[in-house]
């Protein structure tokens, strides 16, 4: 395991859970400090706290809890925190840095710990709004929306894991820890891809496009991206260029084999097709027969045919589609932990040909879990 001799104390709330999960998946021994009253049946708690050992703090005996925590911090390499006004004063980031010079302290907050809005309250919704992501999702003339599966916590947690490991790399050279500061708002920005650059370079404000692709036709035509199919939705776009040519030709071939009515698709020379020059009436005319065809195709059929025919496009999956995807099954992405029936997302990467196995089921108490064997010669 890559981080086999790294001990992580994870005292985060929802905003930071993924950080510890990522480090655990890379081999670190992650101890989750959990207060009383946490609902461990919540699916998100289980998803993002699997592979960690859990230490319950005892509110009736704060002195013993503090002593236990201090003992762990003294040997820990990384401490993950989501500081807020309600946080345990014993876990103040600056104080920990001072007390434990080798410790890497990671402070994850919605907006960072400095700046005029560092004290503002925010849940996933407000962080997605603050990071620009909501302005880019939804119908162009409708309400901005967030992804219904909260994302900002994951963006913050993934950045926190990277930051912790940048500091760990440095510590190998200097022997000194550092304080890693993570802003969830800033962490979301990468999800916008290059959209901010349009404004910076040319004053153009990119915005949400809904279910259609706009900005490709000089005549203002919009291209359909999501198509109703027999059991849900598909993603397909009449692209131009080399990739589009192959995809469009293969769609027509597939429709022909099925005896579908081709309409104007029959006579288009895809080598010359230029989506930038079509007006809306032309786009509607070529999309109409495809619309009828897709209405009779299932998502799984589309996944298989698109792959076989080297077409660009995927079904719009639900979680039920994903868990039965043969690609995912063959690579063993979903995993169980020995002794438990629950299935989880496995470690996110395959390392040297093997997906690192999950070691602890969600909620495994620290005392019950087998300690992780440490590499010979590493500190206790």
């Amino acid at each position: 395991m890559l981080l086999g001799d790294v001990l992580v104390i994870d005292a985060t709330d929802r905003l930071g859970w993924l950080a510890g999960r990522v480090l655990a998946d890379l081999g670190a021994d992650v101890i989750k400090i959990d207060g009383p009253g946490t609902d461990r049946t919540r699916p998100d708690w289980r998803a993002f706290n699997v592979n960690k050992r859990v230490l319950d703090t005892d509110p009736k005996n704060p002195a013993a809890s503090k002593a236990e925590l201090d003992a762990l911090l003294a040997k820990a390499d990384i401490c993950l925190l989501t500081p807020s006004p309600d946080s345990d004063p014993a876990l103040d980031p600056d104080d920990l840095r001072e007390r434990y010079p080798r410790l890497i302290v990671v402070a994850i907050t919605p907006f960072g710990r400095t700046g005029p809005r560092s004290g503002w309250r925010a849940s996933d919704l407000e962080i997605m709004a603050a990071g620009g992501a909501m302005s880019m999702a939804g119908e162009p003339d409708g309400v901005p929306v967030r992804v219904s599966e909260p994302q900002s916590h994951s963006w913050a947690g993934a950045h926190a894991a990277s930051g912790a490991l940048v500091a760990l790399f440095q510590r190998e050279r200097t022997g000194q820890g550092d304080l890693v500061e993570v802003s969830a708002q800033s962490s979301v920005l990468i999800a916008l891809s290059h959209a901010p650059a349009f404004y910076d370079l040319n004053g153009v404000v990119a915005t949400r496009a809904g279910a259609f692709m706009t900005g490709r036709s000089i005549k203002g035509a919009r291209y359909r991206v999501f198509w109703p199919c027999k059991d849900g939705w598909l993603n397909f776009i009449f692209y131009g260029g080399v990739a589009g040519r192959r995809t469009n030709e293969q769609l027509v071939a597939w429709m022909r084999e099925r005896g579908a009515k081709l309409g104007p698709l029959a006579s288009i020379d895809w080598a010359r097709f230029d989506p930038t020059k079509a007006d809306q009436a032309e786009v509607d005319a070529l999309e109409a027969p495809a619309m009828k065809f897709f209405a009779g195709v299932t998502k799984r059929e589309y996944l298989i045919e698109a792959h076989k025919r080297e077409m660009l496009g995927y079904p719009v999956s639900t979680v039920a589609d994903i868990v039965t995807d043969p690609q995912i099954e063959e690579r063993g992405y979903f995993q169980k932990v020995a002794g438990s029936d629950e299935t989880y997302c496995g470690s996110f990467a395959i390392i040297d040909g093997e997906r690192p196995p999950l070691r602890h089921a969600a909620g495994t108490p620290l005392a019950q879990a087998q300690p992780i064997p440490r590499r010979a010669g590493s500190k206790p």
Partner: protein
Amino acid sequence: MSGVPQALDGLNVVEFGGYAAGPHIGKVLGNFGAKVVHVESSDRPDGFRLQYPPFAGNKPGLNRGGCFSFFNDSKYGVTIDVKKPEGLDLARRLINWSDLVVENMRPGVMERLGLGYAKLSEANPRLVMLSTCNMGQTGPRADTPGFGSQLSALAGFCGMTGHPDGPPQLLYGPYIDYIASTLGASAVLAALVNSKKTGKGSWIDLSQYESGLLFMGGALQEYFTTGHVPDRRGNDDDEAAPHGAFPCRGDEWVALSCWSDADFAALAGVLGNPRLATQAAFATADARRAHKEPLEELISTWTRERSAEAAAASLQEAGIAAYPVVTMAGLFSDPQLTARRQWRVRRHPEMGDQAYSFPGFDLQEAPGDIVGPAPCLGADNDFVFRDLVGLTDAEYESYQERGVFG
């Protein structure tokens, strides 16, 4: 650039590939002091250089693309013609200089070039290599090429965005690629730390699809534990009510949420109608959900008369979670991002000034920076091959004469 040594000082990185998923990893490492070399060729420059706008001054050009520059600041740019045997030889010498190779070609391409991990690690056992692509290096659809924007649909994100009675929604750009690259940065750093300790490198197979699924973890776990298939639900939430975006003056929007009855009482006060909090229709979260429409109309009547900034400030003053729905223009004037120096302007030789985006984390004692603008195509051949790789003058000229820097 900061005056203290950066955290990744001494780390040497080489990138083969292009677009988003590979280069974003190198950018982040470069921001914290790694020396990162982005390899292209004149025949096949990075696709982000020309295939997508924006271009500086709206004039397309190899060295004018904002899409490329946005993910390639703080790096050196070189060109190698790997179709020539001497080019492959030079690529190997560059890799031998490096600690980490990041590639996002289709599976098998590096191996066919003779640059697969097994061969490279023979010469450099400490080498870490990350290979990232749509589906991962193995499996029945490993050979699928594809765009991240469409892969975001396969991984469930588009289906989980939008209103339940409407179509799925696009997320801008290759959303899922950045999940893979952000997680990939952690994976390579873990492997590099391990390599320093053990002397043994690693090969990381990073599937963009699987990486994305980690960000769908809650929805997948819900399905595993209850069999329920979560669907898109606009801005609704199980706990908070109200929870959504509301229209403000001048086509602006503000996002706000109430997580308790006390939050709602505070909101009712801000709306100038404290009695709302005790009315049966709004007194509990369930009641507020059941009367969503009239409640949202009451809130919208108040927000429509205000700018998003003014609305958010008043709401926060009362202790309610709120923020303007920041637009792509608004990101550059947001007071919080400005205070954190989110955007750092660097002067590019052809594009002029551009604002580059700093990562979501920073180190207090060894802060990162945007070390320099993105490189022009092949701009650093001389420096990288002579000063970093250590070619002699004769070697350099010989490669040059044979057109290897093509």
